[in-house]
């Protein structure tokens, strides 16, 4: 993998993966897209075999969200509410949400009490038997594979916690206090150097990688973008408040033990504390967060709004499903001796 840092801006390092992402990329930089972006989005979803694994659709959606986060600064903030781009985003979101709902397993809905909801979420997450990236990294991964892992993680983790923060103003009372309690910890509890995204940036630098956001968008597969896009979809649409809450609960509940395995694997490969610190921090942090997320956030929300319970469970199972899709992709590549990243030199795949 080429880890040389280039001097180009983030957006110059993002290449289109098809006609839709090309039009979106141009339009978000303030140029005329040359085509009708909204109809291009409709054509893309009509012709794709699999929205979740479609490079053009997932990159286009990723860019449409990036302008909202401001994560790729060169994307023009004045295009954030551009009507054709919003129309395109809605088309992609509808197709993407339907595709996720179609692959996510149903789980019986418990009674709407904090205790029952927390206990169900712990059951759902512990019943997950998807492929384990963390065990592979702990025992078998090479140094090169560890770097690929950090690159894949960077798409979300350099913006860690941000997708779930969109939910804060949409909650009230106990659920709001619980989400803020978790997010305040994610954002360093008042110490800039302890912000989790900053700890991850430090880990990337320590491993000799580029820690600027967007630097590796080109090399990550569609499923990695899909995993991030799903969080943005849930976070940015108020009607999906239950799903973003359930997503956070499942994410926290499947993090502390894997984080220990990641840290062990990185130590085994000789990486320093600057790289392992992020993962060691998450062993302790997420053992706290999972308790608050299950009971005080998801549980309290379900008590106040029992009608959101199906979506809380949907968000949790969607988190596990997409994590599984990404892990499956990576392990399948690694176990056959290949790189998990896209080969951009040969025009992608």
């Amino acid at each position, binding site marked *: 993998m080429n880890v040389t840092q280039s001097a180009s801006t983030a957006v110059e390092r993002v290449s289109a993966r098809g006609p839709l992402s090309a039009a979106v990329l141009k339009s978000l930089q303030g140029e005329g897209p040359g085509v009708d972006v909204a109809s291009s989005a409709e054509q893309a979803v009509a012709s794709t075999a699999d929205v979740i694994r479609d490079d053009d659709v997932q990159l286009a959606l990723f860019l449409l969200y990036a302008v909202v986060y401001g994560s790729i600064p060169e994307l023009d903030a004045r295009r954030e509410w551009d009507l054709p781009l919003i129309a395109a985003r809605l088309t992609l979101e509808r197709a993407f949400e339907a595709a996720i709902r179609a692959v996510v397993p149903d789980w019986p809905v418990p009674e709407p009490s904090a205790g029952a909801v927390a206990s169900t979420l712990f059951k759902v997450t*512990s019943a997950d038997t998807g492929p384990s990236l963390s065990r592979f990294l702990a025992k078998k991964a090479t140094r090169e594979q560890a770097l690929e892992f950090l690159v894949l993680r960077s798409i979300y983790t350099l913006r860690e916690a941000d997708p779930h923060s969109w939910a804060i103003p949409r909650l009230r009372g106990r659920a709001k206090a619980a989400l803020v309690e978790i997010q305040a910890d994610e954002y360093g509890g008042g110490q800039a150097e302890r912000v989790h995204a900053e700890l991850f940036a430090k880990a990337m630098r320590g491993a000799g990688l580029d820690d600027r956001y967007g630097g590796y968008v080109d090399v990550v597969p569609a499923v990695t973008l899909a995993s991030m896009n799903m969080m943005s979809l849930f976070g940015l649409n108020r009607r999906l408040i239950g799903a973003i809450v359930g997503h956070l609960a499942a994410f926290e509940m499947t993090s*502390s*033990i894997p984080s220990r395995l990641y840290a062990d694997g990185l130590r085994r490969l000789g990486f320093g504390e600057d790289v392992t610190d992020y993962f060691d921090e998450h*062993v302790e942090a997420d053992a706290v967060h999972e308790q608050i997320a299950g009971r005080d956030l998801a549980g309290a929300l379900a008590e106040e709004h029992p009608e959101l319970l199906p979506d809380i469970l949907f968000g949790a199972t969607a988190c596990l499903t997409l994590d599984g899709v990404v892990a499956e992709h990576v392990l399948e590549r690694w176990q056959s001796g290949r790189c998990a990243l896209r080969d951009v030199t040969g025009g992608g795949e």
Partner: protein
Amino acid sequence: MTGRRATISPYPDGPLIVRGDVELRAADGSRISTHRRTVALCRCGLSTIKPFCDGTHKAAGFKAD
């Protein structure tokens, strides 16, 4: 440090969640440093980062009652 009165909540089949102004000390009186406002203390005895919880109780099937 001044803060709100401490609370300790045993979460079902999980750790003790400690919030508020507390100082954790080892048996010899030395201070155990904490890195966050809310901490989870191990209740199952299996954590690898005691006195803090690391989530191992879940895999072990720990039941509080």
